[in-house]
């Protein structure tokens, strides 16, 4: 592998600038004449806009312009879109209501943008925004899915009767019913997956610059996928044609999905820049982030699992109500359907599955993909069911899982997916050994002697990464293809630039992607630069989400490297008068195998550009591009086990030990992978133990709108993690990698809740398992 090649824990190249405060984020961008924007937002969860009076605000010092939805409509700016069409079981398309970038007639959640104020300084804009007098007529509010579907519930969009967006099914209903009719045991559960706020460290921001001389727009923004942003803004929002719009996502401080979507603010800043004639910058404050960043999860599920007398699973029925909030965000329809129900087979042989998902509007912040996107929800259902089933059937949780594991691959599940490879038992065994599962009883007895309640719980997850084969997702309703692009530019001195359509916002691409080149050509990673995040530099790309940048983005790089390698060998063979097939590349040199003839890498590159002596007919230069479209999803899987101790006096849970045994396929940089697992586990444990949104059901106000009430995980909430890897290389891509960015957040919540419910002897406990809730469960049991 070499010291910087595949498998080496190389320190991250990008960290020097991040940890010394030298990163360059959207809010660091300054352009001449730049002014500042503040959005006027609805304080009501549901109301008619009767009138907007800006006269007092316009008279405030420094104010340049105040714009509202009426003007936006006059200028032909389009609605925000949802990019994935989902059909109801009756064949009808989803009922999507209009989402205006600035609300014109009706506001539908607290935080809905109503107007933009542009002023010389941010403080002036804020002062003026306070004086924009919006007259509202309050409408009744609904925040929960059950209430929203009820007869007579407030109607949020005219297009969606009873607030039902779609009523979608997957799987074979009859086969599932037949399976249940043969069941010896049926396990039933009601399961809630709590709503989360993403809380990226860097809040969202946008800088819109209209250049009247060129009739051209530039948008700096906090995006995980700047090319998709450009595509959507030109094709649907009519901001500008693609050739007149440059989108740049510079350093981005975390996304977790929340920065995939194209939000009202970046569109409005671009439009406002033209309308006011000044560059317009907006930087989100933390309260706005709580209110307007797309939230995650929020499912209410009833599930039933049928077993035969020998405890083999016969079938699974799942009914889920997904709260999509007030508007349909960019991928909101896919998250609770094709990214969720397709994983409901888990790691198990299940002959028949039927899932029904109802997507529902409420007067809450829009909900979309958040780290894991559907797979955490599926895993939570599966692994709470399996643990509870084991308890009800009176068998050990690992044995019930072992009995039902899928053991031969490829495996076709009843819910679309074809698992390509895996070894679920290897991860289960590794995790059980790491936590000393067998020794738990004596540890529990020791806790009891101190008046504490100890519990152990596991989760065997499987998820789908490497999203996704374009034709396959197209047939399921996706509005885009999900390939990735790469370009490898070898400079005349032999240094290398890799242009990628992936976007790094914390994942360490600048290091891992460079390691591919080090592995291939034996050049140091310092001579490799990764270029990303700018639509003027990178031709096209689909961005980073769904743990796709390894499996898809790096595969595109490999394809381009193949082409570079082939041409480099041709040049070297020509220069050294050898056969092309005898050229090998090692340690930065091209060698003729079996001889002492060598050509330094940089001399080959120089030769490509001087073009004094190239093979006949060869074009000068050394630059190759590739697009890679995956043939299948990839399927990371693993086993997590959590051991907790509950203080029965206060209900406080302490995580004593947490082990993660993951199969991510081949790994490029183990240190970075470990970091991804740690971060994912912190978020998953955060969901299970700490985090949760709470809306006031009467008013639709977000009660948990700051860190005073929203419990972010902190270092002292978490144990040191024990991590191991079991590797079955992915057969579907050239590097054999599966993806690791979301597994921690996907696999960990059920392990935590299974452990706590084991400790306190109850099955019903909802996330987050706050001290109060655990205490109440113990004392009301």
């Amino acid at each position, binding site marked *: 592998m070499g010291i910087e090649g595949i498998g080496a824990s190389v320190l991250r190249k990008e960290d020097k600038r991040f940890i010394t405060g030298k990163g360059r984020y959207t809010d660091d961008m300054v352009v001449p004449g730049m002014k500042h924007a503040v959005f006027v937002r609805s304080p009501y969860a549901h109301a008619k806009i009767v009138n907007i009076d800006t006269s007092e605000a316009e008279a405030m010092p420094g104010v340049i312009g105040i714009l509202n939805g009426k003007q936006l409509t006059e200028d032909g700016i389009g609605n925000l879109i949802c990019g994935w069409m989902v059909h109801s079981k009756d064949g009808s398309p989803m009922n999507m209501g209009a989402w205006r970038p600035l609300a014109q007639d009706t506001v539908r959640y607290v935080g809905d943008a109503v107007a933009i104020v542009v002023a010389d300084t941010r*403080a002036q804009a804020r*002062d003026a925004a*306070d004086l924009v007098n919006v007259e509202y007529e309050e409408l009744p509010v609904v925040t929960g899915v059950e209430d929203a579907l009820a007869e007579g519930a407030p109607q949020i969009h005219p297009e969606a009767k009873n607030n039902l967006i779609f009523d979608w099914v997957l799987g074979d209903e009859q086969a599932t019913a037949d399976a249940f009719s043969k069941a010896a045991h049926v396990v039933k559960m009601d399961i809630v997956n709590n709503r989360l706020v993403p809380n990226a460290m860097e809040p969202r921001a946008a800088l819109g610059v209209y250049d009247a001389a060129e009739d051209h727009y530039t948008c700096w923004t906090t995006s995980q996928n700047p090319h998709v942003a450009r595509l959507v803004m030109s094709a649907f929002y009519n901001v500008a044609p693609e050739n007149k719009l440059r989108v740049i996502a510079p350093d981005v401080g975390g996304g977790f999905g929340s920065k995939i979507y194209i939000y009202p603010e970046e569109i409005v800043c671009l439009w406002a820049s033209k309308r006011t004639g000044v560059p317009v910058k907006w930087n989100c404050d933390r*309260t706005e982030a709580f209110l307007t960043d797309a939230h995650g999860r929020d499912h209410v599920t009833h599930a039933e699992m049928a077993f035969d007398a020998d405890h083999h699973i016969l079938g699974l029925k799942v009914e889920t109500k997904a709260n999509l909030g007030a508007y349909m965000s960019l991928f909101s329809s896919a998250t609770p359907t094709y990214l969720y129900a397709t994983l409901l087979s888990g790691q198990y042989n299940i002959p028949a599955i039927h899932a029904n998902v109802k997507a529902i509007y409420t007067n809450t912040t829009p909900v979309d993909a958040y780290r894991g996107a559907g797979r955490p929800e599926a895993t939570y259902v599966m692994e709470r069911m399996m643990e509870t089933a084991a308890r009800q059937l009176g068998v050990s949780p690992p044995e019930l899982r072992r009995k039902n594991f899928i053991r031969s691959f490829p495996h076709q599940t009843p819910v679309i997916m074809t698992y390509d490879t895996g070894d679920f038992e290897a991860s289960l065994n590794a995790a059980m050994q790491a936590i000393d599962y067998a020794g738990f009883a004596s540890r529990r007895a020791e806790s009891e002697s101190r008046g504490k309640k100890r519990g152990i719980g596991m989760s065997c997850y499987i998820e789908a990464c490497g999203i996704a084969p374009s034709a396959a997702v197209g047939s399921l309703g996706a509005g885009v293809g999900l390939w990735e692009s790469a370009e490898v530019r070898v400079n005349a001195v032999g240094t290398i630039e890799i242009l990628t359509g992936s976007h790094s916002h914390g994942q360490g691409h600048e290091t891992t992607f460079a390691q591919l080149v080090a592995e291939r050509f034996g050049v140091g990673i310092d001579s490799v630069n990764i270029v990303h995040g700018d639509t003027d530099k990178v031709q096209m790309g689909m961005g980073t989400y769904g743990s796709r940048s390894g499996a898809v983005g790096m595969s595109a790089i490999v394809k381009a490297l193949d082409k570079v390698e082939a041409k480099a060998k041709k040049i070297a063979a020509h220069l050294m008068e050898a056969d092309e097939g005898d050229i090998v590349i090692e340690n930065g040199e091209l060698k003729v195998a079996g001889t002492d003839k060598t050509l330094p890498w940089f001399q080959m590159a120089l030769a490509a550009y001087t073009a004094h002596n190239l093979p006949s007919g060869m074009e000068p230069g050394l630059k190759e591009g590739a697009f890679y479209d995956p043939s299948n999803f990839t399927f990371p899987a693993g086993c997590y086990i959590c051991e907790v101790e509950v203080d029965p*006096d*206060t*209900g*406080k849970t302490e995580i004593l030990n947490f082990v993660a045994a993951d199969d991510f396929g081949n790994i490029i940089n183990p240190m970075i992978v470990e970091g991804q697992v740690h971060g994912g586990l912190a978020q998953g444990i955060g969901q299970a133990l*700490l985090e949760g949104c*709470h809306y006031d059901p009467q008013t639709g106000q977000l*009660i*948990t709108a700051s*860190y*005073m*009430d*929203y*419990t*972010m995980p902190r270092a002292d909430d978490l144990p040191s993690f024990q991590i191991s890897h079991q590797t079955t290389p992915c057969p579907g891509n050239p590097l054999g990698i599966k993806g690791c960015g979301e597994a921690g957040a996907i696999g960990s919540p059920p392990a935590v809740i299974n452990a706590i419910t084991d400790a306190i002897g109850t099955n019903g406990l909802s996330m987050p398992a*706050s*001290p*109060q809730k655990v*205490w*109440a469960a113990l*004392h009301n049991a």
Partner: protein
Amino acid sequence: MYETNYHRPSSVEEAVSLVGSTESGKFLSGGMSLLPAMKQRLAAPSDLVDLRHVEEMKGITVNGREVRIGGAVTHFEIKNSDEIKSVCYGLHHMASVLGDPQVRYMGTIGGSVANNDPAADYPAAMIALDATIHTSKRAVKASEFFVGLLETVLDDDEIVTAVSFTAPEISGYEKFRNPASRYAMCGVFVAKTGSTVRVGVTGAGADGVFHWDEAAQALSANFAPDAVANLSVDPGGMLSDLHGSSEYRANLVKVMAKRAVASAK
């Protein structure tokens, strides 16, 4: 934050006169509550009069068991005081678990006492220590000083210049933190001198800090964790919010009291 004027007086007298001369000035004594409120635009004082540089409000004096702590003394200074540690374990421990390092470096005892946040730590100590709150106008017993949630007997132009108390023989403090804010969802301070025990409770009471009379009585007879085991706390008098119902807080009052007795030194 709205624009404001900042003043740095060097005496109590100057500070009082400065605040009196402003439109809606406020004293700033660490600003660990006031500044966040201003940043949220929930408070908009025309002027801030900073008390942390008033010499006469600084310093900790311990004479035998008589303790006097200046209003501008930070939590960190109390945590760092060997004298406080040797005469009053409970207060020393409280200062060491109060907030986080930034709060301990910036926040002051005078500011905390004057603000009387229902989830603040010091009010419980002041009640249990039967402390005297010294102001720019008078000296008031703690039991009379704290009036209700965020309310005290202080006038707008009145400054907490110091607190004083007779150190108990043993004292202890235990709190249960709100999982999100890490403020006390319930904090209990116990102080014992001879056969007299006092019990201050913060974070839990619907009217703010209170003295738990029943526990004090029971502990006077038997200063042991089990002495409070059979007492009950009326949830009706407790705060209730997302993180802790009144029933849960009533339970915490008892549990934290037991633990404060157990850890008292």
